[in-house]
């Protein structure tokens, strides 16, 4: 198969996925496709099941129904060895960081390299320095996760996730807790990684700026109806989605300014009434 063929092939296919914790249904009937090289955004209100979807995609949680295929192979039907191979080609950051608290940042980033490559110690040290520099943490090699801030932990988690130049990268809210400048740098980094390695990237995020800046495909999860409302390019969803929840979510920037002005007049009114 030539490179051009694989270029537009579906990379991750989700069909009829239903997710539940025990008896509690979280989302049902999710069907969407992530193409090779996409930066795919998972969006939706707080608590609608975005992190849960991510944990299903990386095989940590078993679907209540439906299946998830990578390159046409269903993860949960694959043999243990195939599953291991698949997992090694993925990189993941967690909403809470997920760094190993008993190891320094350098050891954290070095771990996947030691486990999965034959590189020498010196080469690994160089790579660790490079990956930490990419996320703006050069010089923090010997810090423990508990000694750095929450935003720095997120970035260190990112450095570990990209250590092996994975084929698929999963980010859970990479920019939550970062200042606007760092989160813009992070967006640029994500786009850079995509362009240089050709990786497929799945990002869970609420940040509208990031959604439009980096995403070229997306899915919207709705907490009310407990299913997806729409999927496609974020720009298209913003203007053409048949669901007003989706359009409102994506246009929040403008809406909220209007609402804010309204609220302020309310408050000033209240001040005047004794």
């Amino acid at each position, binding site marked *: 198969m030539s490179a051009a063929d694989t270029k537009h092939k579906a990379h991750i296919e989700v069909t009829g996925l239903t997710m539940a914790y025990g008896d*509690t249904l979280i989302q049902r009937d999710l069907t969407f496709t992530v193409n090779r090289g996409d930066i795919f955004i998972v969006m939706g209100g707080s608590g609608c099941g975005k992190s849960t979807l991510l944990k299903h995609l990386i*095989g940590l949680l078993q679907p209540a129904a439906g299946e998830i295929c990578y390159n046409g192979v269903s993860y949960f039907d694959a043999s243990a060895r195939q599953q291991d191979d698949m997992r*090694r080609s993925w990189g993941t950051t967690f909403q809470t960081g*997920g760094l*190993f608290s008993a190891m320094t940042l350098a050891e954290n980033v070095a771990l996947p390299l030691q*486990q*999965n490559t034959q590189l020498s110690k010196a080469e690994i040290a160089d790579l660790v320095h490079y990956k930490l520099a990419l996320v703006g943490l050069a010089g923090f090699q010997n810090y423990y996760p508990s000694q750095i801030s929450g935003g720095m932990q997120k970035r260190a988690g990112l450095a570990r996730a990209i250590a092996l130049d994975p084929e698929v990268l999963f980010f859970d809210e990479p920019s939550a807790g970062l200042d606007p400048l760092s989160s813009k740098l992070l967006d640029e980094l994500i786009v850079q990684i995509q362009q240089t390695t050709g990786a497929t990237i799945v990002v869970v995020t609420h940040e509208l700026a990031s959604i439009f800046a980096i995403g070229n495909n997306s899915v919207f999860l709705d907490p009310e109806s407990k299913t997806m409302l729409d999927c496609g390019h974020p720009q298209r969803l913003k203007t053409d989605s048949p669901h007003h929840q989706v359009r409102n979510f994506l246009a929040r920037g403008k809406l909220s300014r209007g609402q804010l002005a309204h609220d302020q007049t*309310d408050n000033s009114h209240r001040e005047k009434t*004794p």
Partner: protein
Amino acid sequence: MSEPQFELKVEGNSGELLFNGPWQLASKGTAPFSVIAKQLARHDLQQLRVTIADDCQWDSRLSAVLLSCHNYCTEQNIAFDGSKLPQGAQSLLKLATAVPTRQQSKPQQPGFNPWRALTSGMQKMLGFLGFLGECAEATGKLLVGRANMRFTDLGQFLFLAGPQALGIITLLSILVGMILAYLGAVQLRLLGAEVYVADLVAIGMVREMGALMTAIIMAGRTGAAYAAQLGTMQVNDEIDAVRTLGISPMEFLVLPRMVALILIMPLLVIYANILGIIGGAIVGLGMDISFLQYVEQSRQALDMTQVLSGLVKAVVFAALIAIAGCRAGMSCGRDSAAVGQATTKAVVTAIVYLVISDALLNILYSEMGI
């Protein structure tokens, strides 16, 4: 007028509720909504208008009552008219009612359901068997040298389990040796055979008390620590992270802990045995048995089989403590309370395992004639 007050005026089936006085968190008096609801319930209302007196001072205390009032009206199909309220109160009320109260989707299971208890018990058993299976698989991989274990981790756990525990083991072993000696002395003195105190202490320590006491200390020290470490890692998503790196948490996290404990326990038990015998000798000195005589008597009482039978116990106990601790940690929930429960569970199950396995081993030994 220094207490929150309200007044209900009713004409036909439309009512007007007027709030006056200070409705502030800091003002005195009690005025829960239930009192207002009782009054409202006396009338057959179709609509209710709510107003606040001009000189009324109010804050969240009144807003909370307004919200309850609004919800009450919705429930009873009474038209709620808040248009006479000040703008601020109106918009706060609007905010509070913007998202409808969520229906509890998961009602508590009422009472005891034997079927549910049975299936959940079965599931726990299966989970435990699965854990043992994975443990065995990981150990097998270690033996053929293919396990994914960091030897720096192993070194660290050896240090934590071994040298760090010496202090408390020293103290307790000497005391247990002395206790055994006093216990034996009471009886043996009647027979004039005090010198056999040495035999009693030596055999008691080496066959039984050395291994058991050390195991109980290690269950409280190391088993609990394992459960807390792994439980915290569960809370921090660290165990998920290990899985996503394509590493088996069993080999990477459980194996070094288990191996460290299994390697270190026999050494600690030998140390505890020696100190127990010294403790007995101290008591012996008080009974005019010389130290050399005591040691010689102990040496004669012991043979290799007895020492080994104690060390076999040490290895079995170590494995059980590690399994109890790691299992509790790996199946820990995702909050801080769960970490506490996991620690408790690790110690309690470890001690139960210890006593049961000790009894079984003693039966086995006596069948074998050791």
